[in-house]
């Protein structure tokens, strides 16, 4: 210092100048530490001598300088996401506080109420609602949120049978876990509002167990296939059988119609002839007989007729030979 004073002697540093420079520096420092910027997504908590003084909104804000007022900006508009049981990139950020025992891989494995094991992955989203509480009430906030979220989910899953967790009770778990987490966080005065709890993958443990669960779905498909095959064979046979049945009945009805019509026809003819016959029985009987014989014995209708005299003997063998010879 002495050295530099000597070399810069020509500037002639008077005490006044030094005081003026110090004054300017102090003034500059005062001005600089009197303003701070709060982002649109943030609110800022101002402490005066360490004591909570006020919370201010976005924009350029003023405070008392020289560390009398201290401001802490808190992103109150930002919805923050915390994931559980998966290794997504965002997990790395929120996971830094995780204890060595609660490793990310194992945290999603839970016991169900019927003492089965299920793998539940979920996310929670929250927003800081009260920045002052958020800053000053709880120390390890991320860890606290993780711990409580895990314990609440574990407890709800532990209260239900595995099938319910996988299927029907999903939404109920989401709703109830959100309520329970909120209650616990409120009791800590953590100053956050849970926006949503979303269950993502809920699956039986990977590997053989999952395969067995999937096999049940396949079995349901198989069952339906078998039933359909049965129906198929039924549908293949029965309509045809019904057709055949109606054919049999149609044939029978045809027979019936024919039979009755024939009878009526025959009878009609008989009746008319009978009428004629009644007028002269002897003649008509003879005539009918002769007509019939004429027709019967007409060789055009009947082929050859051998007529023998009743007194002629031994004719038969001759006829026999002729017939045999003729066929040759």
């Amino acid at each position, binding site marked *: 210092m002495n050295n530099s004073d000597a070399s810069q002697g020509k500037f002639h540093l008077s005490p006044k100048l030094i005081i003026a420079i110090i004054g300017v520096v102090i003034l500059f420092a005062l001005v600089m530490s009197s303003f701070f910027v709060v982002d649109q997504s943030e609110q800022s908590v101002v402490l005066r001598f*360490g004591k909570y003084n006020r919370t201010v909104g976005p924009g350029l804000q003023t405070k008392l300088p020289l560390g009398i007022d201290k401001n802490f900006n808190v992103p109150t508009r930002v919805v923050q996401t915390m994931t559980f049981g998966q290794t997504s990139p965002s997990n790395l950020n929120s996971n830094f506080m995780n204890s060595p025992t609660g490793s990310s891989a194992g945290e999603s494995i839970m016991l169900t109420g019927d003492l089965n094991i299920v793998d539940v992955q979920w996310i929670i989203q929250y927003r800081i609602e009260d920045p002052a509480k958020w800053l000053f009430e709880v*120390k390890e906030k991320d860890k606290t949120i993780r711990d409580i979220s895990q314990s609440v989910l574990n407890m709800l899953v532990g209260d239900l049978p595995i099938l319910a967790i996988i299927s029907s009770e999903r939404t109920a778990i989401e709703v109830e876990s959100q309520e329970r987490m909120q209650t616990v966080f409120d009791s800590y005065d953590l100053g956050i509002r849970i926006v949503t709890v979303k269950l993502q993958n809920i699956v039986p443990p990977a590997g053989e167990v999952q395969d067995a669960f999937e096999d049940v779905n396949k079995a349901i498909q198989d069952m339906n296939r078998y039933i359909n095959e049965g129906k198929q064979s039924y549908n293949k046979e029965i309509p045809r059988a019904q057709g055949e049945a109606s054919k049999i009945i149609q044939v029978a009805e045809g027979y019936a119609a024919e039979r009755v019509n024939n009878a009526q026809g025959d009878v009609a003819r008989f009746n008319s002839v009978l009428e004629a016959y009644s007028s002269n029985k002897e003649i008509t009987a003879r005539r009918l007989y002769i007509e019939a014989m004429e027709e019967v014995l007409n060789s055009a209708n009947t082929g050859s007729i051998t007529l023998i005299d009743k007194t002629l003997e031994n004719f038969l063998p001759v006829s026999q030979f002729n017939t045999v010879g003729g066929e040759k």
Partner: protein
Amino acid sequence: MKKLITTGVVILILVIIFLLLGPFFIIEEGELAVITRFGKIVNTYEDAGLKIRVPVVDNVIIYPKKILSWDGDAQRIPTKENQFIWVDTTARWRISDPSIFYQSVGSISDGILRLNDVIDSTIRTIISENYLNEAVRNSNNINNLKIEDQVQNVESLEDSEQLRNLTRTEIDQETISVGREGLSSQMLTMTSNFTAEFGIEVIDIVIRQIRYSDDLTQSVYQRMIKERNQIAEAYRSYGEGQQARWMGKTENDKKSIISEAYATSEEIKGVADAEATNIYSTSYEADPEFFVLWRNLESYRKTIPAINKILSTDMDYFNFLYSPDSLLNK
């Protein structure tokens, strides 16, 4: 003038020295302070703000007023039925009485060590005094839930009932009397007795996770697999049964349809035959004698032409063949 400046500078320097000695200190929100004078506690502050102390002799120890986390290692503990499970717990605590805390514990890290001893042994005691169910479940709701596999595509109500019974996995779970939250509050009560002496308030102890020990996990997996297999087989076998039933029904329906048709057709024929017979007989009745003649002649027309015939002249038809007088002789 110069003397005034000198005096001013001296006063300023004295003030600076005084300030440097630190009569003021700040307690921020979320902090506690214990003031000791020659090792003796003279004051504690639990509210934030600017405070005054006697410089040099007063020592200020700042502690967090915030809620702190305690996280123990997962412990392998046997339950009352002697099943080994891993229990992972976590707790929230805060310094409730800074002066007692200062005397009996000292620092936060020592506080965590004390809590390790107390909470770990408490958890061990409570878990091993209770059955596994008490730690896993929180209520008896599970027995009020009826969870059934969705049964689709079954023929009738009885069938779906049957299938449901086959695939039901519900067995009534043992009723629990305490539950997980109950155990947590037991742990809390038990711990609080000890931690009060440390000036520590434990706010809650929660079970973060319960896991089976590794060999137990494997056998649970096996059980789950068998349970699912059993259900899958029930579905398949039901399907096959239904298929067989359809096959049988096919055979049955086919035979009954055809045989019904046969029965109907025979009946129709019978009725027709009867009607025909009636028609014939009512008509023929009028003159049985003529009927015999008529019917015979009709019949001859049909049958005789097809027969190989050797006829004798004995027939009436041939009466005039040899003797045209025969009729006259008659």
